[in-house]
């Protein structure tokens, strides 16, 4: 366990982008809030948000949009990291230093998987929280009664926390096969990891189309990659929608997060367990490749 802690620390030393990138995203967003102008659906005057409903909807929407930006960047970075993590040290030959230490290849691979699927999203989660808090303070001071108050809804805040943490857990499980595949490529390829990550699946699709005339693999891939939302969220939400009319526009959002998330369904679905099984098998394959490969 102690070794694992050091392996994780090492990744933070090596990949400073893990915390620099979210800090930069947060700084940009904060700048926008400090100096930007607000124009939400034509609201420009102090009396526009007359009802508490309107305030809650606008506040929730703001928290959500800011969070989405963070998580989009987080997962793009995380999967890029996973594709590079077992390749970079083979390329610069530092693998020969790491392998001179009493660390198993399984420990190394699992530490990197942990960084990609848990640590990176969590760092972005914290950065998103800090930024939205800062945003709430700034907006309150700048616009006072306008939409400032809208951001101070403890219940809504809590719901967002649950939503993001639920997202991190379910994304990590559902897309474990993708992470495992990227690690296999990263541990195996001698060059061009990005190309190798795309080429074999595409080749299988084309070969199946040509020689068998079906597109089972293609459908499987589409179902899987698009099936995430259907397995994690209920649509429509169990406790209905909340609609607010703001500046002549109807803005709709779920009444609460609690009615949207479906952990019981997610964890009881066979698809989820297939993802866990396939993902684990690919991670195991990455460990086996790591055992046998030294420098590129």
């Amino acid at each position, binding site marked *: 366990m102690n070794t694992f802690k*050091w392996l994780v620390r090492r990744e933070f030393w090596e990949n400073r982008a893990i915390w620099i990138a979210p800090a930069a995203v947060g700084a940009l967003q904060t700048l926008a809030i400090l100096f930007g102008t607000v124009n939400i659906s034509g609201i420009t005057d102090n009396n526009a948000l007359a009802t508490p409903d309107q305030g809650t909807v606008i506040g929730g929407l703001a928290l959500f949009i800011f969070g989405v930006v963070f998580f989009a960047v987080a997962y793009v970075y995380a999967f890029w990291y996973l594709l590079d993590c077992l390749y970079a040290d083979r390329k610069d030959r530092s693998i020969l230093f790491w392998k001179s230490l009493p660390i198993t290849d399984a420990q190394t691979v699992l530490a990197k998987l942990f960084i990609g699927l848990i640590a990176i999203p969590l760092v972005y989660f914290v950065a998103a929280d800090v930024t939205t808090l800062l945003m709430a303070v700034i907006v309150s001071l700048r616009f006072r009664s306008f939409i400032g108050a809208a951001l101070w809804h403890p219940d809504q805040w809590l719901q967002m926390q649950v939503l993001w943490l639920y997202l991190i857990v379910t994304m990590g499980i559902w897309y474990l096969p993708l992470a495992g595949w990227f690690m296999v490529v990263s541990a195996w390829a001698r060059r061009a990891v990005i190309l190798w990550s795309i080429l074999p699946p595409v080749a299988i699709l084309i070969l199946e189309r040509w020689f068998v005339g079906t597109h089972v693999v293609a459908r499987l891939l589409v179902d899987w990659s698009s099936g995430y939302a259907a397995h994690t969220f209920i649509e429509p939400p169990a406790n209905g929608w909340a609609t607010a009319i703001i500046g002549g526009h109807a803005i709709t959002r779920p009444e609460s997060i609690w009615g949207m998330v479906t952990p019981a369904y997610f964890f009881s679905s066979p698809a989820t367990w297939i993802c866990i099984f396939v993902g684990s098998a690919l991670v195991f394959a990455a460990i086996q490749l790591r055992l046998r490969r030294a420098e590129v």
Partner: protein
Amino acid sequence: MSLTMPALIDAQKLTKRYGKYTALDQVSFTIDTGRIVGLIGPNGAGKTSALRAILGLSSYEGTLSVLGREPFSDRTALMNEACFIADVAVLPGWLRVDQAIEFVAGVHPRFRRDHAEALLAKTQITGKRRMRELSKGMKTQVHLALTMAIDAKLLVLDEPTLGLDILARRAFYDALVNDFMDDTRTILITTHQVEEVENLLTDLIFIDRGHIALAMPVEDIPTRYAVVAVTENEVEAARALEPIYERRTLGKTLFYFEAPDFEKLAGFGEIMTPSVSDLFVAKMSGSAV
């Protein structure tokens, strides 16, 4: 080697293939504790393949035991007691000196942090420097300090001084002998530059195209090899004694003999002991014919 004590490294019919290419072909050798062994051969002879197998970095055929363990399946446990420097330039550029010490201290049970820090204190290198900012010689000093501070039974060095200038090389080998070596430890060095290590070694293993060309203690060379300088009119007589190698110098021809008949050789004049470098050239040129 005594019968009761198992060899530190015991390789029997060690074979390594890369596809159709055989890098090591049924190689057998043993290495005992307390020795400094040179694994010497031309480029592409199979040195690195042998080392990779010994360090558990690659799979192989045949049997191999290092410190009583099977290296490939037991690399992690082996690395508690063995350490290696595979070329000096492998410390990653982003790593800071103090991070390197902290990390090795964190994961290695036999690492003596104060020892590493004391070794580095003798140099100009400060803890906040990153490897990419250091010269190759400085990187060597860092890597050596990290490795020396591990209380290891076996140290393996693969072409450790490649790309270093003469001062850095000398410093490297001095540190090796003074700070690391004692009779409970063993060093295995591969190199293709024999002259650099010949005064250091206690044992030689010459390897050529996947085969062992010679394996013996350095102290046995005088009894098993001889060289005589022969004048022009005695050349045919010397050749009749089946030398393994001959070399013309100014006015004389040097003849190298394996398992010589010292009485017969005495007739040609002074019998000399070939240096390790000469022996290497003699064995490698002979086998290349």
